[in-house]
């Protein structure tokens, strides 16, 4: 069976395992909530991760448009960029899929064609990893921009009246 067919047929199981690995990066006492609470408003972290990784997985099979792909990556990175992670840990979720695939296909790693296909998929995953890095930097830069803007808006009217600011510069325009 070709790798693409395997991925398509085993999508549900692979996604579950990938999701579990990502959730394992959170403290043990919280992982059961993040894994099991299905209401998207009660558990935005678990819900967003589980939905976005499905799109990312499909993209490996060749589906989906590029903008949506970036959105999904950014959705997850935006959350992890403000949680208690090192930068490397925050973006590593994408690489966990490689571990899952390697383990699930362990018995077939002697098949040359499959290995070649797997290398190609891994390369795609690596590229997504690099995009995650871009997304992470974008989020962190945003945080510092927000901090600077907040300081201005807090006393916006006073600064405006003392001519230390005008409306456009306060809004970063």
């Amino acid at each position, binding site marked *: 069976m070709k790798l693409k067919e395997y991925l398509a047929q085993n999508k549900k199981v692979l996604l579950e395992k990938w999701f579990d690995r990502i959730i394992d990066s959170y403290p043990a006492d919280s992982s059961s*909530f993040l894994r099991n609470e299905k209401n998207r408003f009660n558990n935005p972290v678990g819900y967003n991760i589980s939905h976005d990784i499905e799109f990312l997985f499909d993209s490996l099979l060749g589906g989906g448009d590029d903008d949506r792909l970036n959105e999904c990556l950014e959705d997850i990175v935006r959350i992890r960029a403000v949680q208690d992670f090192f*930068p490397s840990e925050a973006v590593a979720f994408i690489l966990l899929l490689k571990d899952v695939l390697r383990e699930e296909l362990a018995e077939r790693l002697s098949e040359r064609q499959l290995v070649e296909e797997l290398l190609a998929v891994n390369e795609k995953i690596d590229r997504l990893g690099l995009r995650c890095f871009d997304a992470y930097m974008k989020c962190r830069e945003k945080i510092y921009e927000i901090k600077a803007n907040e300081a201005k808006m807090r*006393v916006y009217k006073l600064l405006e009246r003392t001519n230390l600011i005008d409306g456009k510069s306060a809004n970063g325009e």
Partner: protein
Amino acid sequence: MSEKSKKPQEIIQTIDYKPPRKKWMDPAVEFRKGTFNYSASVDKLKYLDLPFPRKWQPTEDDWQLPDNWQEIIHKGFKDRLNKYRSFRVFMDICVRCGACADKCHYFIGSGDPKNMPVLRAELLRSVYRNDFTAAGKIFGTLAGGRKLTVDVLKEWFYYFFQCTECRRCSVFCPYGIDTAEITMMGRELLNLVGLNIDWICTPAANCFRTGNHLGIQPHGFKDSIDFAVDELEELTGVRVNAPINKKGAEILFVAPSADYFASPHYYTLLGYLALFHEIGLDYTWSSYASEGGNFGLFHSYETMKRLNSKIYMEAKRLGVKWVLGGECGHMWRVIHQYMDTLNGPADFLEEPVSPITGTKFENAKSTKMVHIMEFTSDLIKHNKIKLDPSRNDHWKVTFHDSCNPARAMGLIEEPRFVINHACNHFFEMPENTIKEQTFCCGSGAGLGTDENMEIRLRGGLPRANAVKYVHDKNDVNILLCICAIDKATLPPLLEYWVPEVDVGGIHEMVGNALVMKGENERATDLRGTPYPGKEGSENV
């Protein structure tokens, strides 16, 4: 995120995405940049006569605690257990059923188990068991007891300043444990050894000195209000009167000070001014009671009492009949639940009656202070003002129930009633994120500083997530709220999570929609944004 990055080789060798399995009793906390607040400045602590003013920061190993700090905390704990029966009950009664565990916005956004309200309370409860219960004294950790060590104290500081006292968890507690009051006790105990944060103590000291958080003096206050009067005239063509310190006025109006110096609060101020003028209200501002907010609530009972006292003092000095309060959040927890016994009874005031409709505000019979949302919805109900909601057609609105008006005073329907009359396009967020179950902005209770931004963005995720839902589904482009902290902290929150959505106050919408006698045709809304087809036209 951490300040220090690992070298590539270290990452390859050590990478392990599973956090270490730690027991909750292990108190070690890492103070990473972005996840804590700076300590209170020495001069502000001195100004408020608070104990042990000194220079220190949470990131330092030595917090320069007084030698007998354990004794001080133990005594403080004992005093509070004796003084507040509720505190003792809250310490004893929890059965750790877990109903509150996944209700805290900080837990939901961070996945940090010590942000579960039950576990946050356990940080205090474990010391209570160890020091004040027979089982804890004999069996120690086996009975869930912990000794009060420096690390435990640091953990208290870390987590009690990671609770916004929003009380969402309390809604779900079958015993009605008020976790906010546990946090308040935790913070009071920390204060006893001089551990507090600047974002609470500086506004509190300023407020004690001049009457408002920024320390604006009476002439500056008058200047701010006069400026708003001028600007409102430019926008509407109507010159309103905004009396300050007017003796013998019928009503004293108290609003959060951010309304007159911050954005987008300011547009709500314009709304108040337009409304009061239009109905011919006999009212006055006070240059000393120039702050509705009370950061004493986030500090200690004593500080809350000192800051709150100015409202009744000014009401008495000016000889008003009753007090009207503006769009503020925690201010209403203080007024509704504490003011009557803090500084009351205000028997020199009269039971509030609307001079326009004759409605008696019986719910405020004792405090003599009415929420502006009750007041305005009553005006609308009696057709006393004319509103043209089409002037808000550029806004697709949703409403964030601010924690304290919703949960501490049950103000659920009035804001919606006003919005529905002032706006044509109102979309509710999902039921489990609004009304009594509303999600906090993540920055209340004195935690809205920029050094604490990552905690705020985590804590605000559940709220922003629901806003994003109505934005995607209904094109919502403004989040209304009735709290000054919300108006200050939701814009940065949404800038991160849902940048297409603005933030505003309900009285800003009222001010836009209000048809005023003698007004010019409005070319812009109160923000100065031109209405479609009016771009480039002069507004005077």
